[in-house]
Each structure stands twice: as C-alpha cells, then as structure tokens.
C-alpha cells in the first residue's frame, strides 16, 4: 500500500474559503442559500465558497453556476430516504429523520474528511443536522467557524403519536438544549431564517423552556429569505407570456416542491381538474412535478400542461391566479411574497408543515390550508380551487433584505 501524502499550507498562504451545506430535503434551502452566498461574496469578494451538496440541491447550484465539492458524490441521499419514508401524502417527518441515522453518520464522516483535507475559514450549515449534531457530540472535530441556520426550532409531536412520541420529541429537544448549553463555542452564530413572531407558541417539553423564549435568547434573526427580488408587474407579464398563457386565462399552478413526496397530491389535483374546469372553463393548469417526479407518470388532462423542473419557478408562481401546493415553507412563502391566493395541503404527520410553517403563514396571513382528506374529494378540491381564483389577498409584506442580513452576520465570522 503506498504511503499517504499530505500538504500543510502555511497560515498566511491559505485563501479565504467557506463551505456551504444546504439541506437537501426539498429545494427550499438551496434557493435561499444561493442568494445568501451571492450576498456574502459582495461583502468578501475574495471568498471562495464551495458546496457540499446532494440532489436536488445540486440541480439549483448547477443552474446558478455554484461550485460543488467533488466529495458531494460520496453523500448518501437524504431526499431519497425521505421519499422512501412517505406514502400517500403522509410523511412522519420526525420519525423519518430518526430513521435517517445511518445516512447522517455517513454524511458527517464525508464532511469531516472534507474539512480535514481543505482549510475552511467558515462552514455554513443550513439545517445540516448531521454536522451540527455530531460536532456537538465530538467537539474536538471543530476546526473552523461554524454558522448554523434554520427556519424552525424544536421537534414537535404529532397528535397521532400519543404520549410515546411526545416523550421522544422532548428527549430530542432536551439533548439539543444540553448540547447548546455545554458547547456554546460550537456555533459561532445561530441564524433564524425568519422573525421572532414566526416561532411556534409551544414548549420544548415538560420542564423545558418555551421554544420562542429560548430561540429569541439564542439566535440572531435574519428575517425571511426568499432568495429573489419581488417580481415587477412587467416581469410577471413576461413570465406569463413565456408560459403561453393569455391575460384572460385563469392560471392555476400546481407544485409540490423539490422532493418526490408530493406525488399523491399531484394525482388528487389531476382528479379535480375536469370538475374545476367545468365550473370555470377559462381555468388552465400548469403542473410542475419537480426534479424528482417524472412528468410522464401523471395522467393527461385538457387545459393542463405538465412540466418537470422549472428553474425560476418563483416567477411563474408570481404570475399565477391561484396555486395548489404542499405545506412546504419555501413555496408557500414565495406565493405569500407575491401576494397570490393559494391552497396548501400539509403532509399528514409532518410536524414542520403542520405546526411551524402554519404558524408562520398565519403570521403573514398567507394562503388557505386544507387537509389532505378534503383534497381527496375531487368536488371539494375543485370548489376550493375555483373559490380562490383571483381572490384579493391582504398578506403581510415579506421582507426582501433577508439574504443580505444573513450574509452580514456570516461575514463577521470571516
């Protein structure tokens, strides 16, 4: 076996580098993280940013021309695991993440080798659960500034899980609180992507703090990060024209985010389309399956186009008259920012979509929630869609400076 080789670079010769880790469950983190990275480069033009990332994040990064670290190929795919765990618009997110344990270990070990081989001044982990958890468990492995980002704090039990699940989420929360109390130095910055009033009114568990109180004391708040400037009226019109829709069409966009979990909801919408079009013949549908669902697997419907990945989906969403989406944070907030009426259908048993995201949408007044059982009734879903078309909305404006604020917090660490 040949001997191992190693180069040690003298400290002053090392270029400034950051490693960005963007959660691969869905596409939401990718867009905001690219926007934050772009803002960070304006503050530190000499900073080299690399990404340790998986599909579908790599898809967004490729479109944005961002450099993906070759070790990314060694990561086990978290999105595939989450899809594997889901069934018929039901995803028990907490248990799915618990059962992802061997994937998280694998991916942390990949990360650990990457930061062994390359000197990074800063590691940014946007919901990089493996890195935050295992650094706290192995604090001697930290050799860079570490910034943690998240848009929710606290594992919350779903009612169907009963006391047993409540005990488990409380235990996970307790472990996190103990980690943070003992190893403050592990995170050089904790950034909440949002505002204090986006935080759920709940406790971490019996005898533990209120989530909002604790988060306010331990996080900095960047405001929401949409990752784009709000589209102008002209941009909206141009997007609509590009998609091939007339001004007098009523356009409904249907999208389920970037993972393959939304397949069942897409089929329910397909069931409702003929009924909705009977009520409103000018209603046209654009169904965007995302990069992990094959458009060819959906049935055909009159007045309906089915597309796979649409790079700047936010522009299309801003140009719609109504939308039907899953309860994922990013898409719901894109629609809220664009002040579009929309129906969102949270995944059953998904604590983040059912508690954290709903709390934030209530805060902005965005969208109308319907349960999946309601969406399974084609008449009810068709009626709900038609009722929302072009409804005047009065959402709270979504801030537009979140990426710059987050980048400014990160820039101080370099």
């Amino acid at each position, binding site marked *: 076996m040949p001997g191992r080789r190693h180069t040690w670079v003298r400290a002053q010769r090392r270029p400034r580098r950051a490693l960005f880790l963007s959660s691969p469950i869905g596409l939401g983190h990718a867009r905001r993280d690219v926007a934050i990275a772009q803002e960070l480069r304006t503050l530190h033009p000499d900073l080299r940013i690399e990404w340790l990332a998986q599909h579908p994040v790599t898809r967004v990064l490729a479109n944005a021309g961002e450099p993906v670290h070759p070790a990314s190929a060694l990561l086990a795919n978290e999105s595939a695991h989450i899809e594997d765990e889901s069934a018929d618009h039901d995803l028990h997110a907490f248990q799915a993440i618990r059962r992802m344990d061997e*994937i998280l*270990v*694998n991916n942390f070990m990949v990360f650990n080798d990457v930061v062994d081989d390359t000197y990074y001044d800063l590691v940014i982990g946007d919901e990089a659960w493996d890195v935050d958890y295992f650094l706290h468990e*192995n604090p001697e492995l930290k050799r860079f500034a570490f910034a943690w980002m998240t848009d929710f704090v606290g594992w919350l039990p779903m009612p169907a899980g009963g006391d047993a699940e409540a005990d488990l989420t409380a*235990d996970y929360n307790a472990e996190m609180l103990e980690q943070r109390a003992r190893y403050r130095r592990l995170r050089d910055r904790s950034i909440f992507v949002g505002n204090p009033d986006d935080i759920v009114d709940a406790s971490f568990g019996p005898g533990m703090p209120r989530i909002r109180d604790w988060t306010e004391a331990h996080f900095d708040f960047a405001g929401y990060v949409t990752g784009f400037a709000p589209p102008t009226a002209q941009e909206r019109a141009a997007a609509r024209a590009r998609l091939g829709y007339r001004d007098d069409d009523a356009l409904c966009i249907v999208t389920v985010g970037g993972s393959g979990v939304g397949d069942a909801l897409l089929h329910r919408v397909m069931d409702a389309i003929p009924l909705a079009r009977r009520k409103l013949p000018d209603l046209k549908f654009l169904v965007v399956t995302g990069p992990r669902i094959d458009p060819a697997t959906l049935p055909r419907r009159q007045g309906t186009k089915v597309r796979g990945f649409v790079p700047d989906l936010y522009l299309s969403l801003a140009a719609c008259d109504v939308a039907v989406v899953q309860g994922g944070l990013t898409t719901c907030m894109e629609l809220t920012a664009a002040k579009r009426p929309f129906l969102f259908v949270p995944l059953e048993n998904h604590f983040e979509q059912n508690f954290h995201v709903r709390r934030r949408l209530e805060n902005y007044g965005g969208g109308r929630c319907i349960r999946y059982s309601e969406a399974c009734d084609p008449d009810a879903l068709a009626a709900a869609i038609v009722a929302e078309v072009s409804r005047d909305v009065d959402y709270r404006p979504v801030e537009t400076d979140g990426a710059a604020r987050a980048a400014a917090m990160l820039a101080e660490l370099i």
Partner: protein
Amino acid sequence: MRALEPVQSGSVDRDGVGIHYEVYGEGSPTVHLLMPDVIVHSRAWKAQIPFLARFFRVVVSDPRGNGRSGPATSPDDFTDRTRIDDQWAVLDAVGADQAVLVGVCTGAGHTLMMAGERPDRVLGAVAINPGLRLTTPLPHRIEFDFDEPRESYEGWQKQNAHYWRTDWADFARFFFGEMFPEPHSTKQREDCVEWSMGAGADTMLLENAAPPSGSSEIESSKEICRAVRCPVLVINGSLDNCQDPARSPIAADLTGGDLVVIEGGGHLPQARDPVKINLLLRDFVRRVAR
C-alpha cells in the same frame, strides 16, 4: 433507506445452516466486522459500514439464529468453536486470505481467539468491550437465578428463562436500556430491541444453554489473550453494564494492545458514538495494513 448497498451478498452453508454475509466497498484490506451476539445481527454495524467501505472492503455477517442466517436448533450452535468456524467460513466465502477483525462483546473475544489460532490470516484485531471472562462477571449479571421462576421480575431479575418466554420484548427493552446508559439513546435502544425480536426467547435460551468454552474461565481467557501476536486495539465503555469494564485493560495488557476508554460510554459505543469509533477503526486499519 440504507446509506450504502452491498456489492456482494450471499450465504455460506455450514452443515445445512446458511450463514448470510454481505460485502461493501472494494478497497483493501478486508475488514471483517464480526457477527455480533445472536441477540442482534449485522445491522448493528450500520454506522460503520458505509464509512469504512469508502476505504476498505467491509464484510459483515448474521449470526445463526438471527438476521438472514439460518435458524439455530441446538445449544451447540453457540459454542465458541462453532461461531468462530462460522466467521472463518464467511472469510473463505468472500476470498479473504487476510483481514482485520473487529468485534464487540462475544465477537470481540472471538477476534482475539481467531488472531491466536490463525496469525497468518489476522492483520489486526479490535475488541470492543471484550466478552472474555478475564474477571468475575458484574454482580448484577449473576445475582439472580436464571432458571428459577419468580412471582415478579424487576430489573436484572428479568434475565430469567421464564420471563424471557413470557415477555421477551420487555426483557429486550430492559436489557438494551442497560446497554445504553448514555442519555438520549432512544433510537439505539429501539434498533436493538427490534433486531432482538429476530432471535426471540427460543433462540436466546439455546444460546444460554451453550456448553462452556475457553472464554468461560479466567485463566483460559488470559491464555486466549496471551496467544495474540498481531496489533490489537481494545475499546471500552466505562459504564458497560454487560462486560466488566475492568476486563478491557487486562485484555490490552495481555495482548500488548492499545486501550481506548470511552468515559461515560456503554456496551455498544459503535452505535452511540459512531463518529469516534469510526475514526478509531480507520486509523487502526490503516496502521496495521501498511
């Protein structure tokens, strides 16, 4: 979903009992993560396999009586001899003339026995909380009669043949609670309880009835250690409630091996502190494979 799928899997026939094995990665040398005690199976190494397979060729196998190996039918299925020959048969089946052996508990004792009997085939041995009787057992392991029925069963009284037959799952929950004394080990305990259901009371009673062998006596256990010539790493959880933690330094002394103590760790640190154990294993394999 698994983090990594095997590149090869199969079964080796041992007098009519199929021993299931899997091979991950294509590097060198071969690292054999020995089949654990029958109470669990090869998934007990799930946190090690994908990492080590990036560098080495990793072999795992299921013990007879659990996982995808054939059933155990006799106490003789659980002698050290039978189980060690099962391990050799797996190495033969995957064409590994030499390997680094890694074991936990009884399997850790087997790594040292195998190193002693075939020094030409064992490049190095890692023994995690070795199950060799180098000291008298921990008091709670022998305090209560295993065969005597009781009116009620509390704590280690559940280590009892009648209780096992009545409520194996509850024993498993108790036992793995003891095996993971580290706080916040819910997932590791749940995993082990689930895997233990593949063995169940009947198989575990056969194992319990296995005839004594070299690892059952203090002096013969010391001889097993003294016979080892290859590099050895002993890893010990200071709060191990299965094997007396005092056994690990004795094993390290007698083999001339290194000792790493996981202060505050329990019986199964490869599951509860996988990052630390993974890094220790990679360093050891690289060192001995030069």
